[in-house]
């Protein structure tokens, strides 16, 4: 018990030290690299809280995909003139520090004062599992009990892509997302991009598939598939499809569209929006999740690549 406790304290100290580094590092690039390490360690904290589904999501999206996004942005902003950004005057910094310490202290006190054990919906979530045919209560919450949240969140992803693409310069509209690829990819990256995807695609589909009963699901599996596509694009082995491509757009909206269609069908068949007819809940849920995985696998790389920066190829 004490060994586990010491490990927990060490993990918390490491997480906080990396977070402090992310805030204090001079270079934005170094801070972004620190953020990736921070996210991976934070996912270990999530494992210690017995929230393996969240740990997978944090590692894949919170640390991995967000990390790629921030590191690339930091690398591109290296040329920006930093002279205009003066830090706050020391007295103000001190004041801000006091304020933030007070916020953190109040939150910590609240956490310690809150009832333990906390009020919980776990019995209801587990009690209704048989009607969904699922074994993983988190997946049941995501796709069945609180399906509305998850559907709207898919819409948010699509809206974010629309927002990012709308930042394209006029001349570049219709081109492939992101900056032009280098003519000669780096050998090590190209090698990795050839070796990793066969494994990664299998792992991604596996994590999506077992999500019904074990930790995993559409978010986590989709993020791994997205990573495989990103690495082949970064290595220059594949070109991103142009933003005017109808196929790409269909894939991007397929997740929320299928979710919405089945939800509306539920009004007629099962007597409620996003209700599933009893007996066929699990196949329907897996059907929705399959399209959600596809949408996530396509959306995340598009968000990381950014708006098109090259005119469309004739």
């Amino acid at each position, binding site marked *: 018990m004490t060994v586990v406790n010491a490990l927990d304290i060490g993990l918390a100290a490491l997480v906080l030290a990396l977070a402090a580094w992310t805030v204090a590092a001079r270079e934005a690039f170094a801070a972004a690299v620190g953020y990736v390490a921070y996210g991976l360690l934070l996912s270990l904290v999530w494992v210690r*809280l017995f929230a393996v589904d*969240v740990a997978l999501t944090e590692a894949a999206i919170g640390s991995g995909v967000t990390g790629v996004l*921030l590191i690339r942005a930091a690398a591109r902003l290296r040329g920006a*003139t930093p002279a205009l950004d003066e830090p706050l005057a020391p007295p103000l910094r001190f004041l801000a520090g006091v304020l933030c310490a007070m*916020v953190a202290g109040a939150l910590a006190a609240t*956490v310690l004062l809150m009832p333990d054990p906390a009020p919980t919906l776990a019995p209801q979530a587990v009690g209704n599992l048989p009607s969904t045919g699922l074994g993983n209560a988190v997946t049941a919450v*995501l796709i069945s009990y609180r399906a509305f949240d998850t559907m709207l969140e898919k819409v948010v992803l699509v809206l*974010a892509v629309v927002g990012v693409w709308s930042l394209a310069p006029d001349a570049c509209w219709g081109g492939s997302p992101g900056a032009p690829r280098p003519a000669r990819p780096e050998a090590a990256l190209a090698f990795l991009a050839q070796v990793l995807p066969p494994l990664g695609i299998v792992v991604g589909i596996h994590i999506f598939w077992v999500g019904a009963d074990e930790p995993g699901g559409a978010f986590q599996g989709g993020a791994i598939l997205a990573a495989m596509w990103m690495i082949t694009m970064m290595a220059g082995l594949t070109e991103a499809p142009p933003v005017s491509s109808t196929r790409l757009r269909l894939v991007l909206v397929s997740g929320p569209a299928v979710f919405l269609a089945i939800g509306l069908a539920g009004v007629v068949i099962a007597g409620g929006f996003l209700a599933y007819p009893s007996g066929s809940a699990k196949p329907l849920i897996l059907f929705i999740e399959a399209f959600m995985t596809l949408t996530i696998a396509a959306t995340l790389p598009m*968000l990381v690549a950014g708006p098109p920066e090259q005119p469309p190829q004739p």
Partner: protein
Amino acid sequence: MNTASLAGITGALLVGLGLFGLVTNPRPLRKLLAFNLLGSGVFLLFGVLARRGAAAGIAADPVPQAMVITGIVVAFSATALAVALLLRLFEETGRSTLRADPPSKAAGDGSGA
């Protein structure tokens, strides 16, 4: 102190650190990084509530867990949109600052850049 309370204190300190970075660092990308720290601290507080809500044979309440999973994805979407805005600003002006006007001492090199 149990694991959940320790994680709760970690989360609270992460919120404080993130808020400090957000308020004090003038550069937009660093503000974004700090805001993500703040967000992950808030998510961790949800995780503490989930762990304390262990019941019915599962080790953590699934409802806060599902909300955090949704939250992580939405936070990523917002970060991606903010990064795209920031990079576009940099492309247009050669600067990555939130200041509307360059300060007077840098007026000579800042106006046309």
